[in-house]
């Protein structure tokens, strides 16, 4: 008696498929499904209450959602640009150092080793209006005698969060760009010198095109990070005061767990995932273009 046999590759891959499905696909589908229901954590039976696209319509019409969305895009744009410039500067400096470079590189990676929670607490202390380092320093220097409300005023809080983000992640750029600088061949740089380039022109015309792919990789990685920005903000301001520093993910977190409106939270989550996907696609396009420029295949 012969049974139809499954192909070997299929049998071999099956466990991996099953595990992947269980870990990734099922929660994903479940959350997608729940975004079409009025699911509330406190009332499990609402999971079966299909309400169509109501949650999506509600999110799209919500001013809170759009202001959090806009603030996230703003944070993303400012943070990525500043981190890129700072990281580039840092990488160029470290690249110049010949003695003790190894040590510098290690030190540079320190912030990456910190948990974002820790970074949040650290900067919450630094920017505290009464006992914080910044205000103490400013007051000791006699620059001001008022307690600046760093984490209370909307704009100042945004800046504080930005600083914390940058402190913890500029090194991602610095490390990746440094790796790029190490990979720049010496010959074209020397050719450029002979061709009459000043150091700035060599950098602009030769080095920069070489490290552009590395910059885009860093941007793609970081855009995902910042679009998910939650922990630092959660700790430092909890999106407050009065939603002044609300980002998408703090809004979603509060809606889902504090207000227990899981279905609505998931709907907002899916909308904002498009934000992340859009940024990532954009940077990967740029990355491929930059690589094609260098003849590395597109």
């Amino acid at each position, binding site marked *: 008696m012969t049974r139809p046999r499954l192909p070997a590759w299929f049998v071999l891959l099956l466990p991996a498929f099953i595990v992947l499905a269980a870990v990734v696909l099922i929660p994903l589908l479940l959350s997608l499904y729940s975004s079409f229901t009025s699911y509330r954590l406190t009332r499990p039976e609402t999971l079966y209450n299909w309400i169509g696209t109501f949650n999506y319509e509600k999110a799209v019409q919500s001013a809170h959602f759009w202001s959090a969305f806009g603030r996230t895009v703003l944070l993303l744009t400012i943070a990525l640009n500043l981190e890129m410039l700072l990281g580039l500067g840092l990488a160029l400096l470290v690249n110049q150092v010949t003695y003790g470079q190894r040590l510098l590189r290690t030190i540079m990676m320190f912030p990456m080793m910190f948990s974002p929670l820790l970074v949040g607490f650290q900067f919450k202390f630094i920017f505290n209006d009464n006992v914080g380092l910044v205000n103490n320093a400013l007051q000791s220097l006699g620059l001001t005698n008022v307690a600046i409300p760093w984490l209370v005023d909307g704009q100042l809080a945004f800046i504080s969060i930005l600083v914390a983000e940058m402190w913890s992640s500029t090194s991602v750029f610095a490390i990746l760009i440094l790796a790029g600088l190490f990979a720049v061949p010496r*010959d074209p740089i020397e050719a450029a*010198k002979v*061709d009459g380039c000043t150091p700035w022109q060599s950098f602009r015309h030769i080095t920069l095109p070489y490290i552009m792919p590395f910059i885009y990789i860093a941007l793609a990685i970081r855009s995902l990070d910042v679009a998910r920005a939650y922990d630092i903000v959660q700790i430092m301001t909890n999106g407050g005061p009065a939603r002044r520093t609300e980002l998408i993910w703090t809004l979603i977190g509060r809606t889902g767990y504090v207000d227990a409106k899981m279905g609505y939270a998931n709907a907002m989550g899916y909308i904002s995932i498009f934000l992340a996907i859009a940024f990532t696609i954009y940077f990967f396009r740029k990355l491929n273009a930059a690589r094609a420029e260098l003849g590395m295949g597109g």
Partner: protein
Amino acid sequence: MAQVTLRTVVKKYGALQVVHGIDLDIDDSEFVVLVGPSGCGKSTTLRMIAGLEPISGGEIVIGDRVVNDLPPRHRNISMVFQNYALYPHMTVRENLGFSLKIAKRAQGEIDRAVDEAAEILSLTEYLDRKPGALSGGQRQRVAMGRAIVRHPDVFLFDEPLSNLDAKLRTQMRTEIKKLHQKVKSTIVYVTHDQVEAMTLADRIVIMRDGHIEQIGTPLEVFEAPTNTFVATFIGSPPMNLLEGRVAQDAVALANGITVPVPEAFRAHVTDGQEVILGVRADNLMPVGHAMPMEGAHAAFDMTVNLSEPLGTETLLFATLAGEEVQAKMLNPRPVASGEQLRFQLDLTRCHLFDAQSRQSLR
């Protein structure tokens, strides 16, 4: 258009000295070739002239300026690198025009210069490709083109042909020679290929271990090498060297063979002096298969160990005075190993070197 002068130029990497105070005067529009074995400091010397390597001592003058502390961009030089060093993200056109663009020349002028260079080097149809899509020979020509668009005072070439196949190398050698006749710039050219050196150079500079061993025209260094190193480095096959002792106007070699001291060296040797006799294969030929030798010559029998037919001539490996020597046979006929032949030695073209200093005795 410029002279280049090196005065006791020294290069050290930390405690390691790689160029030991070399002096060199290069005339305006002269074609000078630096040759020497690998690691002798040719590239280092070239890079010091270019300003890519700071010098540790001495003085470099280009035109009428001491350029010791000038960066490359102020020296008005072009350099062709051994491995092309093209800009991979620019098209051939942009590669060629880059230096002019940096110099902020008008676009029309850049286009004209690029088209002209592309014409000379047959690159016109590749102008819009990137270097990655070119063959080695084409990249080589782009590197050359990038150097010539600028009309620099001095061209510096670092083994520009070493990556090409034999045919392309010969072809490019001719192109370079033509280029020099056309643009009349000063050229410093590095190679370790002595055929390239002989065919291209107005003057050859032979280097070893960071020292200059001899400077001279191709004929001078071939016909009057100042020491055994130059004698064996220039010319192919290398000059045969035989140890001996001077006795009554003759050089006594091993195994009782004696050769009269060549006329030109008579006044410079003393009886009992230890010497080295230098003989090129071109001047050691079997009787009946030799060039006519009008001046003084000697003759002796040798046993042929091996023959290498080259077509118009055959290279013979034979034993003379206990040493293996190479000889040439014109109008060749097949020669069997172990065959004994009578050889003629052209004394007017022999060399004598002191056995201790290994310097020429002339």
